[in-house]
């Protein structure tokens, strides 16, 4: 692939709605290739809605989402599907298909889109499960493993087709601090190994600082993004009390008494 400096994802003037309500207006940001990009914001601010729009499940009210310069929502359905195939998504609860074993979960995308033989697919499945530390769990059903393992298995499925962009919906929610930390490390390692661009939606501060290269902060009250940049840089330089409050759990500056 030729080297280009164009951002992988560009979001322009994006408005989002939930049911009949506009939840976010006028979002503008871009995600660079190979970055770990964090969408942060308080609960209920529209982070998950933004994710749904980014992964192509929900149409925005208005605005553009460009992948490598191509406007996703202007394409016809088959072109959209083509583009979605280059995404991997880890849903909040893992969203593993409960009637399939872990192996079948990871194998399905490969059966669908690869030209590999069934023996080769089995090898690939073993590899992806090994990458997330689940060697030997191929024949387990999702109900038989723990929540943290389910997330990792979901990640194995998300990276089955070596996606260009991997989306994470609240990766550390519901995990104990240690498992959350392990998942963060795994995210960084996968980015380095696969060279993928990663978008994470979360409000978990520890994760944000541990993995985030770049970030946007969404705000519920003003219904738009109020900061953009690297989380550490934002913490050091931002003058906006709302940003500082969010990044310090409200322990610094102008907390309402």
């Amino acid at each position, binding site marked *: 692939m030729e080297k280009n400096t164009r951002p992988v994802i560009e979001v322009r003037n994006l408005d989002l709605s939930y049911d009949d309500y506009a939840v976010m207006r006028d979002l503008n940001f871009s995600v660079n290739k190979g970055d770990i990009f964090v969408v942060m914001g308080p609960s209920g601010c529209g982070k998950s809605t933004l994710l749904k729009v980014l*992964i*192509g*499940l929900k149409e925005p009210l208005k605005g553009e989402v460009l992948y490598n310069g191509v406007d996703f929502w202007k394409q016809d359905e088959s072109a959209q*599907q*083509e583009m*979605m*195939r280059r*995404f991997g*998504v880890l*849903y*909040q*609860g893992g*969203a*593993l*298909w*409960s*009637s399939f074993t872990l192996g079948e979960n990871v194998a*399905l*995308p490969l059966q*669908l*889109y690869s030209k590999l033989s069934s023996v080769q697919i089995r090898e690939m499945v073993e590899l992806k499960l090994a990458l997330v530390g689940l060697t030997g769990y191929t024949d387990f059903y999702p109900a038989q493993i723990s929540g943290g393992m389910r997330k990792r298995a979901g990640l194995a*499925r998300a990276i089955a087709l070596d996606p260009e962009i991997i989306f994470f919906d609240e990766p550390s929610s519901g995990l104990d601090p240690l498992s959350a930390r392990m998942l963060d490390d795994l995210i960084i390692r996968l980015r380095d190994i696969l060279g993928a661009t990663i978008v994470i939606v979360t409000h978990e501060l520890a994760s944000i600082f541990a993995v985030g290269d770049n970030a946007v902060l969404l705000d519920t009250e003003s219904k738009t993004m109020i900061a953009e940049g690297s989380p550490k840089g934002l913490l050091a330089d931002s003058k906006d009390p709302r940003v500082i409050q969010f990044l310090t759990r409200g322990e610094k500056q102008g907390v309402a008494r």
Partner: protein
Amino acid sequence: MPLNKLSFEHPSSNTLRLKLSGEWQIYAGLPAVEEVISELSSHKDITQLTFDLSEIGAWDSALISFLLHLMRECGHRKIQVIREGLPEGINNLLTLALKEHERTIPSKIKPASFLERAADKFLQLKAGILALVNFLGEIACAFGRFFTGKAYFRRQDFFGIVQRCGADALGLVSLISLLVGIILAFIGAMQLQLFGAQIYIADIVGIGMVRVMGAVMTGIIMSGRTGASFAAELGLMQVNEEIDAYKTLGISPVEFLVMPRVLALMIMLPLLTLYADFMGIVGGFFISTSVLGLNPVEYWHHTQSAVRLSNLWVGLVHGFVFGIIIGVSGCLRGIKCGRSAEALGEATTSAVVTSITSIVVATAVITFICQVLGV
């Protein structure tokens, strides 16, 4: 004896002092705020309210809610509430509660007018119909791809579904249709005995079962069994974001999940209907020959001559249509399920209600068409 006591003092003509004593706790119950209000209304010149809590015993949030209610009432009457006489703990709690009141401004909770609700209902209905038409279209497309060999779904899943909505239902279908056959025989016997024409029980049971009852009973059993299970299954997949996971992979949930289920029911329901017809006739035969004393051979011949092939076809068409109805309504309700436990329950209920209602309506329509065509 009341645990708590409320008394009034009038230190000056425009001031009411409220003296609270005893225990003000949740379990002890509360005096009504109206007592204070009636006291306030009987003295029109009162402009401020003070408190004396020097003799108060144990208290908890019951006291706070009493005071908040009182303060709200005083606000309406433009009476100033002087909070100095309150202990610090109570005052802090009041401050906290009032602060929350100021902060949360409910913008959405506005009672809708009748017209607004009517319009909402209409829009919902329109959206519902559009969703149904859309869904039917998607299923039709999926079947189109299936018949051209392009549909993607797992064969082993399909056979699992066929087994679940076919072979696994045999026991229940046997029992119900056997009993329906018996019931038909008894009802027929009651009237036909008057004319000594009991042998026509064979006609009633045979035609009744084969033409409509076998299919309807199977349809109703399968709505409850399979329609509900499809709705619950797909609904839970929706709740767990499994359906989203299919979509992001470019797998059409309609093609992968719905089409095999509808197809399985389309195949299995006519077969189950055939089986139910047979079991119903066996039931009627058994009762007629053992209890009503008819000759088995004669009964058998009568059945053979009465039940024509056209009756069988009508029954099978019923079964086929019911299969589509049950499959579509079960899957539709499941896929459109909201993301909560309550929504899952609603999806299952409405899958069963929709399919049973549609089965009855479809039966009426098919019967009418047959009447017109003279089948």
